[in-house]
């Protein structure tokens, strides 16, 4: 309960002002395509040079929490996920916005983010010592199996058929091999200098999600009779609160999955949203509605990606090991003030540590309040005529992908992948499994290579990858996941054939 003593510091005028700036600024940065939470925090680091350590960290902590949630805004309204964490939000969120339910989708996403986020930070406060051990328990072999588990999700994610889902996953896995191999330094498929660093995940996200949509909008032309103006429905905040309460399953699946995945160093928030979405779909009796603007999809995805924020800092705060790129940037922010995360932080600078954590807690609430306030206004974006919208989204896509590292190479990558995705979508492939392949490929590969090097020097491949309780448990889940997909595929085929018979 030590953290309660440090709540006062959060509400000091300067600190609270910074918290507000961090939260509102974070929401805006998060809603800007191309600005991931990692970049937003990195951009703010120079401002903390001149602040006291506590104040600097409040700014960074608030920005981290609200950029993650802010990413949902562009995911829902523009179908551009601000960061990998928001991919799953586009699946149902954008469909809802197209139906004129943008306000409802945004309100639900901010409420779910706040619930997930607060629980995540509470886990960080109360369970840090136990969670630290858990974070360390994942070695290369476990991370490899975890990535494989992610691959099995690919088939059932947002696709008309398992085969097409797996195929687009494979395209993603292939794209992930482009560039210098990180461990050996070998060059693979570098046919243009812009590809030397591999395909930037943010550029790929923007291209794969935004560009097909832009082309579709342009293809519709600008004849006034064809541009449908969507009636944006008003949605009261109370109704959204009631809906969240009525969906405890999606909310708890999202929060728990997000918290667990957030803990694992190296996997982090990138896949938390997608895995939670997939799990919520599998456990839901209304699973057929997923992908067609179902509120459970938004709730699960957004509660997961904010629940991951707190636990993702556990390895950093206890062991001084940054578990995610954003945590690495935060480490830099701490070191500049001469504060070493680890036991030193909680023993010698409890004021800094607890004020930082408390500010994230308050930040979640503030983020929710501001988010709900802007939700109904922001939802009006859907009323913009489509041909205008197409131009705006295209502009944002180019700006966003250029701003990642001030490089035209990323813009070319974005455009090329986007045009490719437009044609793939016409054949029934979808972007989400492709991106998942792109994210999981490097994780699986690096851990396999590293694990096999350790295995060859020690116990041998067989016992290293297949021995031990955790490996066996993970393999069992992988098999169960594959079996489930196969079963579902067979069952749906039977229904189709029945319909054909009676139809």
């Amino acid at each position, binding site marked *: 309960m030590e953290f309660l003593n440090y709540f006062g510091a959060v509400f000091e005028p300067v600190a609270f002002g910074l918290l507000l700036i961090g939260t509102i600024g974070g929401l805006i940065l998060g809603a800007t395509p191309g600005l991931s939470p990692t970049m937003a925090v990195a951009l703010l680091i120079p401002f903390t040079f001149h602040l006291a350590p506590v104040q600097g960290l409040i700014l960074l902590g608030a920005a981290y929490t609200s950029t993650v949630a802010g990413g949902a805004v562009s995911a829902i309204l523009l179908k551009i996920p601000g960061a990998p964490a928001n991919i799953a939000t586009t699946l149902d969120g954008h469909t809802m916005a197209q139906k004129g339910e943008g306000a409802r989708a945004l309100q639900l996403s901010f409420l779910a983010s706040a619930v997930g986020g607060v629980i995540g930070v509470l886990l960080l406060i109360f369970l840090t010592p136990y969670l630290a051990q858990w974070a360390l328990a994942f070695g290369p072999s476990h991370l490899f199996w975890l990535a494989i588990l992610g691959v099995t999700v690919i088939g059932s994610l947002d696709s008309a058929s398992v085969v097409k889902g797996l195929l687009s996953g494979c395209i993603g896995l292939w794209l992930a091999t482009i560039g210098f191999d990180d461990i*050996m330094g070998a060059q693979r498929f570098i046919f243009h*200098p812009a590809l030397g660093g591999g395909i930037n995940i943010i550029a790929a996200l923007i291209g794969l999600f935004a560009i097909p949509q832009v082309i579709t909008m342009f293809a519709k032309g600008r004849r006034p009779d064809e541009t449908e103006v969507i009636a944006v429905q008003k949605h009261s905040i109370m109704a959204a609160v009631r809906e969240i309460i009525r969906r405890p399953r999606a909310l708890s699946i999202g929060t728990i999955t997000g918290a667990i995945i957030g803990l694992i160093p190296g996997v982090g928030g990138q896949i938390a949203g997608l895995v939670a979405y997939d799990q919520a779909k599998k456990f839901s009796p209304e699973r057929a509605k997923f992908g067609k603007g179902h509120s459970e999809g938004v709730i699960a995805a957004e509660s997961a990606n904010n629940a991951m924020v707190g636990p993702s800092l556990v390895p950093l705060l206890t062991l001084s090991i940054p578990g995610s790129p954003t945590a690495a940037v935060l480490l830099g922010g701490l070191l500049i003030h001469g504060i070493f995360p680890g036991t030193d932080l909680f023993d010698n600078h409890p004021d800094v540590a607890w004020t930082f954590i408390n500010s994230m807690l308050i930040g979640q609430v503030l983020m929710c309040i501001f988010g709900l306030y802007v939700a109904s206004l922001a939802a009006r974006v859907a009323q913009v005529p489509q041909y205008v919208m197409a131009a705006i989204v295209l502009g944002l896509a180019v700006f966003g992908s250029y701003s990642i590292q001030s490089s035209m190479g990323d813009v070319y990558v974005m455009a090329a992948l986007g045009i490719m995705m437009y044609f793939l979508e016409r054949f029934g492939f979808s972007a989400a499994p492709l991106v998942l392949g792109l994210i999981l490929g490097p994780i699986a590969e690096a851990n396999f290579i590293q694990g096999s090097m350790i295995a060859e020097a020690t116990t041998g491949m067989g016992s290293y990858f297949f021995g031990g309780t955790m490996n066996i448990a993970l393999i069992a889940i992988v098999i169960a996941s594959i079996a489930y997909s196969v079963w579902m595929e067979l069952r749906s085929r039977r229904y189709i054939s029945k319909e054909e018979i009676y139809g």
Partner: protein
Amino acid sequence: MKKLIAGVALALTTLTGGAALAEYPERPIMMMVSYGAGGATDFQARIVTMTAGNEDALGMPIAILNKPGAGGRVGWNWFATQAEADGYTLGAYNIPHFIAQSVKGGVSYSADSFEPIANWGADPAVFVVAADSPMNSMDDVVNYAKENPGKLTFSGAGLFVGHHIAALQLEKAAGVKMAYIPTKGGGAAAMKAVIAGEVMGGVNNLSDAYRAEQAGNIKILGVFDLERSSFLPDVPTLKEQGYDIDDASVNFRGVMVPKGTPQEVIDVLAAKVPEMFRNDAVAKKMEAGGSPMHIMTRDEVKKMWEARETTLKDLLAGL
């Protein structure tokens, strides 16, 4: 009259021309860092350039541009082939990384593609083991490796970086075969492997190891440098422990410009940048972050680059 006008015009051009040169820099400068935001190189680059805008330094701020990927290859490839050589694009170098990569091949740069300006830091590699490891000195490590050839696993931040060079030097000097496990994700991932017990030991940055030791997670058994570090006065160097290992793996960080940058600009930078590094505020922030400083002038860095290239060509010849 014509002569007069021509004379005035000539005088004006020389005047403005001369003034432009004398006034370098007249707009903000960009510095490319070939590692991601938050990494040790990025973090230090931001600190040492924070006073650039002061009148006694360059008088213009320096903005950091991250071009991460493939252990720095992406950024340095860009710097060698695409960066403008006008003095407004600086780059951060890491020795021995970029020289080792160019010796190994497959990149479009070598030590001749760049002009050094000044060095700001030197982060030696250290050998670490988990806090509960039975090994307490480098002799314990080497003896284990002798009894179990190729079975002692130890982590480091990739191939052809300082950690890998240190690992090669250790194997060569002790005459043993060990299993070097390169990790993806830099020194942090390599350190996590040691703390979590995935590997038996590891080579890591002194600055990161110092923090991890303070937190009680690891033991530091030796420093891969010529002298002991002021951060770790009790840890002996590898040389003191009887292994013939020099400072070839020490991670030197500094500023460079692309080849072809005007000599006048190089001279201005070479004179002012080391002074900028000597700022007290910079030293305080670096000290607080556990980052050892080591300021060297352009001439000293030139010699160091040449010496490294010879050593590394020799060391990497067999790979």
